């Protein structure tokens, strides 16, 4: 997995706020889990 490519993507949170993925792990490690479903 290329974290630079993935980090360039922005996704919406529950409130519709855009989050740049690279910002999430810029300063700390992140356990990033892709879910198959919600719940």
């Amino acid at each position, binding site marked *: *997995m290329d974290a630079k490519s993935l980090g360039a993507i922005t996704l919406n949170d529950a409130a519709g706020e855009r989050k740049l993925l690279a910002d999430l792990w810029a300063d700390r490690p992140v356990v990033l889990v892709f879910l198959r479903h919600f719940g």
Partner: protein
Amino acid sequence: MRDRIEEIRKLGAELVAVGTGRPEQVADFIENERVNFLVLSDEKAEAANAASIENASVFRLFHPNSFAPTLHAWKAGHRIGTSGRRVTQLGASFVVGPGAEVHYEHYDEHPADHAPLAEIFAALERTGVESASGVPAPPA
């Protein structure tokens, strides 16, 4: 994994989930499951594609190795919730950062396959980030 979130945070890390549904489904999931970490909507599969996450064939979705874990999860009270837009997308887990360094990756082989928590915590310790208490994470 969410039962271990405090341990994750003590290692100076954070848990982030990415789902296949719309933001409204994310909000329902957070409320219904009392989730206390960030959950993002990847309804257009932008992140899934960038992370090379596969879609499963029918044979992988109903892989025999998934039967026993699925039954075990069912008996433990876990239920499959709202499906997102891509029911055939498999799951995956990564440990990323600080920066763009990938310390761990696990692509699920079938729906009941998940990254072993011991491997995730070992990867977190390898990041060498100081914990919230100021104590450095132990060496691998």
